[in-house]
């Protein structure tokens, strides 16, 4: 008895029986090879189901859908602000990662008070020496401004169209948390260049923390690394900006959009 499989599912034999072109043979051979190892067929089936469930058709505008005359409230960009803030967030993430190659979160190098520090110098380096660096920083900053603006306007749109009402309360509260984190993102990024305004903005942050009873000093230690600003503050703001917040905010955005996906867009009017 031969050790060779006499399986009726002998795909190679089936392949040979067919009259196929080279391209078709190559495609099928690759597909079979991958499917034997990864069970691609299961995932293709899932994708196919999703495709048919998606009920593809050209999008209708809100006005078309509801046969409305007054176009003012259905002005599209107002309904795209959430997406716009996500896209701005992605642009900021990519440009921020590129900026991170050159940035040094360090207050070293200042001989006297008011001298440029290593962090400040690395920004000067980015803006003056790095190819495209000036534009890169500009894109990063403007995408952050766009994101914050879009997030605020998104909240106003949701408020004035009553989209936060039952059953969407949880997402509204999640949105408030996300706005707070976005502002924290902006604040921590504002501190990183370690210029005069960065320093004194952080100073106000420390003073706010210290004015809070009970938890204030602990919060100042945690966020600013002490009661006076220095190296510890800069590193903490840096880690907050490039490590903690990206994970938390990305996760919460995914949850926020996921809930919208599950509940459907609030019925537009």
């Amino acid at each position, binding site marked *: 008895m031969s050790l060779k499989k006499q399986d009726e599912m002998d795909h190679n034999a089936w392949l040979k029986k067919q009259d196929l072109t080279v391209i078709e043979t190559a495609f099928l051979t690759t597909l079979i090879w991958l499917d034997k190892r990864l069970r691609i067929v299961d995932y293709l089936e899932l994708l196919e189901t999703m495709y048919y469930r998606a009920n593809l*058709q050209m*999008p209708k505008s809100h006005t078309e859908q*509801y046969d*409305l*005359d007054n176009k003012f409230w259905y002005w599209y*960009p107002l*309904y*795209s602000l959430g*997406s*716009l803030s996500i*896209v*701005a967030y992605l*642009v900021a993430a990519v440009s921020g990662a590129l900026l991170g190659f050159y940035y040094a979160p360090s207050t070293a190098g*200042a001989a006297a*008070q*008011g001298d440029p*520090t290593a962090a*400040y110098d690395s920004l000067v380096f980015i*803006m003056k020496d790095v190819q495209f660096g*000036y*534009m890169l*920083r*500009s*894109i990063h900053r*403007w*995408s952050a*401004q*766009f994101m914050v603006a879009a997030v605020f306007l998104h909240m*106003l749109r949701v*408020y*004035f*169209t*009553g989209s*936060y*009402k*039952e059953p*969407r*309360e949880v997402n*509204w509260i999640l949105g*408030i948390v996300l706005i707070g984190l976005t*502002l924290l993102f902006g*604040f921590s990024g*504002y501190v990183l260049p370690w*210029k*005069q*305004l960065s*320093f*004194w*903005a952080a100073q*106000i942050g420390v003073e*706010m923390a*210290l*004015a*809070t009873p009970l938890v204030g000093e602990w919060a100042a230690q945690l966020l600013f690394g002490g009661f*006076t600003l220095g190296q510890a503050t800069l590193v903490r703001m840096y880690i907050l900006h490039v490590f903690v917040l990206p994970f938390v905010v990305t996760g919460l955005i995914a949850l926020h959009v996921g809930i919208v*996906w599950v509940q*459907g*867009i609030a*019925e537009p*009017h």
Partner: protein
Amino acid sequence: MTNDDTPMTDGGTDAEARTDGGPPATVPPDDETPTWSERKEHSRGLAQLTYQYFERSRREDEDLRAESTYVERDVLGFPTWPHETLRNLAITSFFVGIMILIAALMPAHFGEPANPGSTPAIILPDWYLYWSFGLLKLNPLNPELAVLGGNIVMSNEFLGIVAHGIVFGFIGLVPFLNKGSARRPVEQPFWAAVGVTGVILAFTLAALAIQNFFPISLDLLLTLTFMLPVLGGILTYAVLKTMREGYMYDLNRRYYMLRPPK
């Protein structure tokens, strides 16, 4: 040699120690997913309560569906995919173009290096935190809030932090205060007025934060900070109330047909 059923020193048998898993311990009866009530019977405590609720909720759904006199509701919610997603992608890519254009035309500002020894004349955060900075400058209000023979209850800085808590807390409470099926501002003039008040307050607080730029006295500015939003709110309420009459016909005809009030 040893039989599978021979008791071993610990009292067990080889049959129990089989490493191939043996026959599956639990076979789902006739290959079907158990219903909520079956699961309820097989569980206890919190799990049983959960299944009990699921059973009720399923029955409620079915009852409501059976009782419903609405043959077909046109739209329950707008599908996220593909309708919203495709349109949003088109619009947002346009905005990203604008963003990059602006980034090229108006590069980011860069200032002096940090100097802990000299406080700049004007300290300002980015524009989006002006309102927050304005909340920190409410200290002239603090003596007004004093009780207990004029002693200030909390420090000026803490007042600002409490103000933040009030703002965020109120916004978070909105969905629990404002209920019902009304969606348009004309349908709910009061809540639209509250919204306009909030928006104007954000702007006046921003103005309070950059008070150095206004050639008016601080008292007047502080009064305006709180009076303008209220005025704006009253104005919005009046306008929407007036507009409402004209809208009622359309609202009734088109809107409530889709979403009947409970």
